[in-house]
């Protein structure tokens, strides 16, 4: 009996102590107390986009002056070309055009990806506005790459409303290019049909 009373008293003391040592806040308002802002790749890429597009345009070199074998992980390029073919895969999520650059006579094959899903991280890898070290970890770094690809679609590709009618047209392209084997993949940052 005595033990039970002591037990209850201890329990009451614990409850009293704990309820005295608690801060109750509205759900989701932690930020006001901590000042911590969660990482948002889209917000970050949005504000960086103009600088990055400008940087890539500024650094871009004509494709005919490049040794394509050294393209590797990515370079900024610009060129004028003729559209050879428009392809659409995966219900229009993987659109692309194959092109023939002006004055090019080599046997590389050139593809411009037009989304809405973009592969690779070429834009992120050629820009210097943000570095890997600016991010907490590679997850954020890869989210950032994806967010930049989304910017490409929103700002560059989507407004043009490209479809199979572009075949045979001439196009001016600035963008980031990568190569695997003899295939060059271009992610555009500026594009205009004539």
């Amino acid at each position: 009996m005595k033990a039970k009373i002591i037990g209850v008293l201890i329990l009451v003391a614990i409850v009293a102590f704990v309820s005295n040592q608690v801060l109750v806040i509205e759900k989701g308002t932690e930020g006001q107390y901590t000042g911590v802002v969660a990482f948002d790749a889209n917000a970050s890429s949005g504000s960086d986009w103009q600088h990055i597009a400008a940087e890539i345009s500024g650094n871009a070199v004509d494709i005919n002056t490049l040794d394509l074998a050294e393209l590797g992980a990515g370079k900024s390029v610009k060129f004028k070309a003729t559209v050879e073919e428009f392809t659409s895969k995966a219900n229009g999520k993987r659109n692309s055009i194959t092109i023939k650059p002006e004055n090019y006579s080599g046997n590389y094959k050139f593809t411009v990806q037009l989304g809405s899903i973009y592969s690779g991280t070429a834009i992120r890898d050629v820009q210097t506005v943000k570095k890997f070290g600016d991010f907490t970890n590679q997850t954020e770094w890869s989210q950032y790459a994806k967010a930049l690809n989304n910017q490409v679609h929103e700002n560059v590709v989507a407004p043009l409303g490209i479809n199979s009618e572009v075949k045979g047209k001439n196009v001016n392209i600035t963008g980031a290019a990568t190569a695997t084997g003899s295939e060059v993949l271009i992610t555009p940052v500026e594009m205009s049909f004539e």
Partner: protein
Amino acid sequence: MKKDNNQLVMTLLKGRTFIVLILLVIFFSFASSSFLSLNTLTMVAKHVALYGILALGMTFVIITGGIDLSVGSVVGLVGMLAGGLIQEGFTFGDKTLYFTVPAIIVLMLCVGCLIGWINGIIITKLNVAAFITTLGTMYICRGLANLRSNGATFASIGGFEGLGNVGLKALGADWLGIPAGVYVFAILSFMAAILLNKTPTGWHFLAVGGNEKSAKLSGIKSDQVKIWAYIISGFCAAWIGLINTAQLSAAHPASGDGWEMNAIAATVLGGTSMSGGSGTIIGTIVGAFVIGVINDGMTMCGVSEFWQKIIRGAVIILAVIIDQTQRNLQAKMALQARNESK
């Protein structure tokens, strides 16, 4: 002549763990030039504290003839609950509760006790073998620990001034050059020794483990005594959950995986009999140090991970063999003494 010989061997055997500890320290001091230094010894003490505290609770459980396999998982679960309370708070409806660190410590110790209590109730009232019960709670607690965050780590253990929950890291820091865990180890060891040797309850642990039937005939509530042993074990495990989280500055759901084995090993090395009824706190502490010195010593000597495991296993088996030898010799000497007095 032979009798004196026996007595000498007996004394050596009784103090064997301590002798082994001294020999190990001497050995590693020669094997690794940097071993015998204040820094190294502090480090060893810090590492020993982790499973030493678990072993304290385990000593009570094993003395009563049981076993607690759940302690390692309780370490993980308590760490995750504490980490979650600091980083995400406790959401209840549209309110979120952020507890202060002292409150979190109290709550987590309660969680440890609660799991111990559940273990004890299942073992005594529902008559399930201790091995099975705690094996079950071991899996359950590990699952809950992972479930709390879906396997992710809680990294913001430091807390935020604005939320008033700063301070857990102090449990992982050094105070006056000695890690906080070592203080906790010392205090809990002291309390455990007092409890076991200086209170009626302590006698009851030994009585229930030594001869449960007689204990019942003496009017001791053996079920309650056993339940208390598991509560103590859970309490100790909760401390390790907190200390480990503080030391890592992060709560990791895999924390404490397999530590119950270290705790059992330390307890057994310390001379606690797996069949219950005998054991000392000081023995357990020395046992924990033996394991700690072997671990850290071998690492500093560059012994490969695989060999470390082999040697650790051999040491444990050797300890039990020697323990058995001691018991046999003791029985032999008692018989001898009796025949002489006849």
